[in-house]
């Protein structure tokens, strides 16, 4: 805790997790503002504690036609379909992020970068893990849980213990000492079991959750589904209770031994504290950017600090996983 001018107590939100310094627990969730290094920098400038890239493929991958993303104040549905130009672009953007800022050198990096990777096979995951590990991001997040490419790729790997563990092993073979978070799906019977399986296979941390569903929205007058893919993953406010429960299950199943990036419907400092009480050490923020603007990271941090001060919390460790204590 730092004491400013002797009157105002401001809770410190800094943590060291798996050897990475996070100035605060907010993390830009994958797939939001995540296409270019310039976008990541812009989010970092707005106060995010870490940045996650959009999912990076081992080869070029086309997404779905528009409409791909629709939102109202309760939820978003997206079926972007994980478009990506492949490793060459990933190399260029990550290298650019690591280098000095081309216009404002004082804004040069050192907001940690989490490179999110995806593939349609264990081998593919291994390949992209190898490519990305060479670029030395601060951490790697493995997306085995996207619900809106099911037509093309079948059930996500996150829906089966052996598949989830297999991908984790394939990735870990190439990642050396770079921490690996595996991103899980809420759309399973027992997310705790999957969490246990990936940690057993070497995952250093867990991200929970990817989008819920999938869901569908229909235009009444034309009587047609709005998303071109017909269905899409649900995110935003509406999914927070699911995310909180999933984080609680993952924490319990892994005895609180690995850090969890709690993601899903986090809009406010109170939302962040709630998912941390369920077991998250870091909180992913995605859809809320639409609602609260790019300042959402700063706002969430301020609200967390205020709540902690008002409730006499001295350190985030008092909060994390508190429901299990």
């Amino acid at each position: 805790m730092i004491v400013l001018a002797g009157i105002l107590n401001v809770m410190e939100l800094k943590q060291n997790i798996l050897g990475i310094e996070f100035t605060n627990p907010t993390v830009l969730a994958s797939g939001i503002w995540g296409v270019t290094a310039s976008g990541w920098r812009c989010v970092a400038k707005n106060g995010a504690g870490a940045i996650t890239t959009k999912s990076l493929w081992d080869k070029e991958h086309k997404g779905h036609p528009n409409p791909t993303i629709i939102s109202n104040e309760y939820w978003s549905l997206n079926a972007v379909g994980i478009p990506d130009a492949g490793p060459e672009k990933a190399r260029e953007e990550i290298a650019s992020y690591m280098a000095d800022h081309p216009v404002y050198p004082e804004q040069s990096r050192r907001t940690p970068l989490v490179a999110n990777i995806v593939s349609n096979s264990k081998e593919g995951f291994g390949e992209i893990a190898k490519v990305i590990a060479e670029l030395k991001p601060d951490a790697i997040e493995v997306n085995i849980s996207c619900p809106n490419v099911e037509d093309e790729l079948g059930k996500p790997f996150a829906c089966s213990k052996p598949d989830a563990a297999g991908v984790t092993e394939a990735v870990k073979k190439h990642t050396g000492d770079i921490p690996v978070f595996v991103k899980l799906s809420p759309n399973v019977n027992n997310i705790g079991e999957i969490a246990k399986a990936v940690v057993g296979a070497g995952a250093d941390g867990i991200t929970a959750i990817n989008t819920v569903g999938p869901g569908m929205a229909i235009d009444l007058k034309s009587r047609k589904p709005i998303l071109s893919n017909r269905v899409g993953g649900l995110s935003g406010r509406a999914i927070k209770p699911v995310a909180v429960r999933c984080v609680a299950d993952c924490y319990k199943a892994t005895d609180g031994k690995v850090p969890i990036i709690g993601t899903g419907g986090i809009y406010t400092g109170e939302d962040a504290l709630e998912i941390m009480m369920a077991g998250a050490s870091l909180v992913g923020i995605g859809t809320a950017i639409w609602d609260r603007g790019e300042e959402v990271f700063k706002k969430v941090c301020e609200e967390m600090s205020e709540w902690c001060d008002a409730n006499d919390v001295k350190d985030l460790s008092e909060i994390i996983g508190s429901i299990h204590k």
Partner: protein
Amino acid sequence: MSCGCKKNNVPKTYKIVSIKKETEQVQTFTFDVSLGARPGQFVMVWLPGVDEVPMSVSMDDGKNLSITFFQVGDMTTELAKCKVGDLVGLRGPLGTHYEWKKGQHLILVAGGYGAAPMYFVANEAVKDECTVDFIVGARSKDLLLYTDEIKKLENTNLHIATDDGSEGHKGYNTEILEKLINQRLSSTERQSASGEASKNTPLDSTPCEEPHSRKASVFACGPEMMLKRISDICAEEEVTCFLSLERYMKCGYGLCGNCCMDPLGIRVCKDGPVISNDICRQLTEFGAYHRDELGRKKKF
């Protein structure tokens, strides 16, 4: 107003109430809805089963909203087949819009479909006692857009440029812009040298009370290489300038990041499409490259 205030970005379908064929390749659709759009803003236009693409609003008079579009590829070819009474999805209005001061002088430069959103600017600005120089460019006379409508606007001077000289100045519309700015600057210098205020400069045909309102602003919408030239001219001459940029859009409201521009990372859908030239000058990709739907760079 940005989309964030409305808390709804789910398209709804509306009926086309009228269709105007502007040229062989261009049509204007008017819908049975107003979305309260301001000049410069855009909407995402959805054709169920086909695609959803961004289109500038070419008019929103509080009762009806219109778009004016070129037939270029799959989506716009399908859209061009629509008839009065057909349903088209719209969401928005999205992004930033043009702003002016009461009585200000505006120089509008339009290329391609740009004449349509710029007509919306002029139509609203003259209601605020603004005076307008409206420069429209096209390859030839039969491709010019909105010139009849512009001629009917009060306090508006229409200037035409065609590549083949079939109407107006033979050459680029940016050449007319340079000429107008130079005239304006030289007469301002003349008058300030003689101790007079610049209120009768050729581009300030209407007298105004506020000194700031006599400062002209340049607004432009059209192909990026045209915008780049305008950006250079205005930077050199130190004229205030705002430009309508275009990038590949998915969400249209600042979530996906597909429309980010290097190196600032601003999102054209949310922080634009109307962007001040001061910012444009910092965007190294402006006039150099854009990105496709996979985020891959494409040179202009």
